[in-house]
């Protein structure tokens, strides 16, 4: 009894031609599936970028991405190279960096505005990711006139 795709092809008869054709078809199917998954995960990530100040809502994001809740985090990580939680932390820190540069809001106000639950957590996470305290960052930062999506993407603190 054939158990896999390769065996099914051989079972059909004209091995050389069918296998090449079949592999090409399968590659196309797998490729298109990956494109579709990527697009849907991007949609979920866009939703995270809009609601960054709110707690991570995996059920809602999984629905947007058309995947099961149980698989959402794994697929997000496979697609974007980091877990949703980590992506959100770095997004919040990036937004905090933006507010520190562009506004006069206090670090404490910024902390709550971007979705952290305490100034202590905020400072610690900020320093871990950026390498200096929010206040130190503000001192040395320079405001920039750049379209928001480029700011959000390129001024994101790295891992």
């Amino acid at each position, binding site marked *: 009894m054939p158990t896999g795709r390769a065996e099914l092809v051989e079972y059909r008869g004209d091995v050389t031609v069918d296998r090449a054709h079949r592999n090409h078809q399968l590659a196309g199917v797998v*490729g298109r599936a990956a494109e579709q998954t990527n697009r849907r995960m991007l*949609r979920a990530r866009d939703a995270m970028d809009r609601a960054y100040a709110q707690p991570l809502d995996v059920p809602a994001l999984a629905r947007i991405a058309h995947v099961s809740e149980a698989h959402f985090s794994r697929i997000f990580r496979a697609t*974007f190279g980091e877990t949703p939680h980590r992506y959100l932390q770095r997004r919040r820190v990036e937004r905090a960096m933006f507010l520190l540069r562009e506004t006069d809001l206090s670090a404490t106000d910024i902390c709550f505005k971007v979705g952290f639950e305490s100034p202590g957590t905020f400072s610690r996470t900020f320093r871990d990711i950026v390498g200096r305290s929010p206040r130190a960052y503000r001192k040395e930062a320079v405001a920039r006139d750049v*379209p928001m999506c480029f700011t959000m993407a390129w001024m994101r603190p790295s891992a």
Partner: protein
Amino acid sequence: MINAITHSQVYVLDQDEAVDFYVGRLGLEVTADVDLGFMRWLTVSIPGHPERQILLEKPGAPAMSEETAQQVRELLTKGGSLIFSTDDCRKTYETLLGRGVEFTEEPTDRPYGTDCALRDPFGNSIRITQPKA
């Protein structure tokens, strides 16, 4: 010397779907749609302004190996980009929202003007900016 930028390019996964979006929803017009045999040369521009075109290119062989083309297609959905201008960002936003366009950022005031952001069906990011008067 170089005196103009005439074409910019974004990758799309399907050129018919791209026309439905860029022409049908965003209101651009097709400037060129030519079957060159090895590729379909498809460009769009602002109605009445053919001097500045966007090439809607589909990644594929023989321009790149099929393996590379697949990588490009998959990367595409992770986010190319375009920036347009408008006289009225908020009005454009309302109109496009009504046409079912997916927005990632609502009209927001910035130092350089008011802008909003959306995605085409393939994941390319598009900004629409109303420059500061």
